């Protein structure tokens, strides 16, 4: 059964703009992105929205629906009341290019700062071997579709623009964890990098990143907290420090 839904959509850019009201047809089984496309087709042909796969796998249509960071293509209209006014805005942690499209280049800047995977020097290419139980933790983080909803909801940068310089954000903490837990990554400085360069200590683990992840990656429990504990191993744990002196190992924990 179709009905007319009330929508408020952000129109404008980062200089000026606001929420504009629309009434638009909704059919059974549709998602918010369908309604945005119908708006484009029938009422506002210049409405800007970034999208691609419509299957929750490309991470393009990230926005905020009723104030919550969501993928437009994965937000079913059936989850709303028919009389409800649905508000759609761009991600509020990033600069707006136009309407629902944001400039997410902050994330690519942070991605480039992470040292790449370093293959072991004592094993020939082609001879790399890993067991499943050694890589399964890293594999969870490879599910990331880079929608940047976690970055959008993280209050460290959402509410404090000045922190963007020193804070990489949850998406790149899972990258740090993925590499530090990787059995063949030869670098041993991932922990100190996460602390000093990525601003891991600024995260106060309020779990909003986990709450909004459309891939249900346990970002906080499986990446950020384990990385914090690994930093504690190397920076704050005198027991580990004494143990390493006795065993004559460098303080930065290597691969165990």
């Amino acid at each position, binding site marked *: 059964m179709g009905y007319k839904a009330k929508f408020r959509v952000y129109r404008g850019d*980062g200089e000026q703009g606001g929420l504009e009201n629309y009434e638009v047809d909704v059919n059974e089984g549709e998602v918010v992105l369908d309604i945005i496309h119908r708006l484009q087709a029938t009422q506002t042909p210049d409405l800007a929205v970034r999208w691609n796969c419509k299957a929750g796998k490309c991470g393009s249509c990230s926005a905020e629906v009723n*104030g919550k960071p969501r993928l437009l293509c994965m937000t079913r209209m059936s989850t709303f009341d028919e009389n409800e006014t649905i508000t759609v805005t761009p991600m509020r942690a990033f*600069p707006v290019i136009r309407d629902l499209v944001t400039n997410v280049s902050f994330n690519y800047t942070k991605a480039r700062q992470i040292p790449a995977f370093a293959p072991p020097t004592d094993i020939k290419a082609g001879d790399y071997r890993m*067991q499943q139980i050694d890589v399964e933790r890293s594999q969870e983080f490879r599910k990331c579709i880079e929608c940047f909803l976690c970055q959008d909801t993280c*209050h460290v940068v959402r509410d*404090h623009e000045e922190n963007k310089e020193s804070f990489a954000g949850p998406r790149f903490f899972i990258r740090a964890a993925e590499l530090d837990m990787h059995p063949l990554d030869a670098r041993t400085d991932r922990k100190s990098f996460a602390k000093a360069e990525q*601003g891991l200590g600024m995260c106060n683990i309020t779990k909003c990143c986990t709450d909004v992840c459309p891939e249900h990656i346990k970002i906080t429990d499986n990446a950020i907290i384990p990385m914090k504990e*690994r930093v504690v191993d190397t920076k704050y744990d005198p027991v580990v420090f004494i143990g390493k002196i006795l065993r004559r190992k460098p303080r930065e924990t290597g*691969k165990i």
Partner: protein
Amino acid sequence: MTSGTLSPGRARITARTLRTDKYWISPLLTVIGITAWITYATVRVFQQNYYWAAQGGDEAIRYLTPFYSPCISNGCIEGAAEWGTFLPDLWFIPYAALTLPFLFLFRFTCYYYRKAYYRSFWQSPTACAVNEPHKKYSGESRFPLLGQNSHRYFFYIAALISIINTIDAFHSFQSEDGSWGVGVGSIVLTANVILLWAYTASCHSCRHIMGGRLTNFSKHPLRYKGWTFVSKLNGKHQELAWTTLASLVVADFYVMAVAAGWITDFNTF
């Protein structure tokens, strides 16, 4: 406002949040729950009475509330002070002053409680995608919150204290003359200890120590099994954090009620 979500270039939306759900309920319940628990615990810890159930007149039972374990003050009743008494009996020194600060710090630095009180008490943030009221933010990167990194030490101490609680629960099945039996109190104290162990073992630091710090699980199969088990418990850490707050109050209140003579403990002694 020209910072936060109204920083230059961002959407020109002034609302603190556009969320329409009741996002404030969870932090409100957290504030109510934690405040009520701290109030109850503070009153009981400084009450210095009704902590040893044998006071009720039934000398057979030996129930010691976890809030007074181990009872190490000179003011402790003889039967309750199994570990010796060496603290002066002053009104402002809890009878279990050796352990209570560490148990408090274990929970204060716990990753779950941190989330809970940062959101509810400190409003940083109140809820996801709700602007926080603070102008500056440095997280846990500076003193005093840098001290949150000491969580694993309080975990070690809390595990030792859980052993003491376990001994108390064990003794609740034994009467003064050495005979064995079971009472409602021993069941309550044992259930509380089991939950305390589950909460302690489900701690994120425990998970890390057990095997989280390893890179090659395949070379450490026993630790991998331990890590897998603790990971399952860890998934229930939030629930266990609240359940143990409740179980501590239930255990303490039961002992107090029996000690004060308000109720009679049903037992086989």
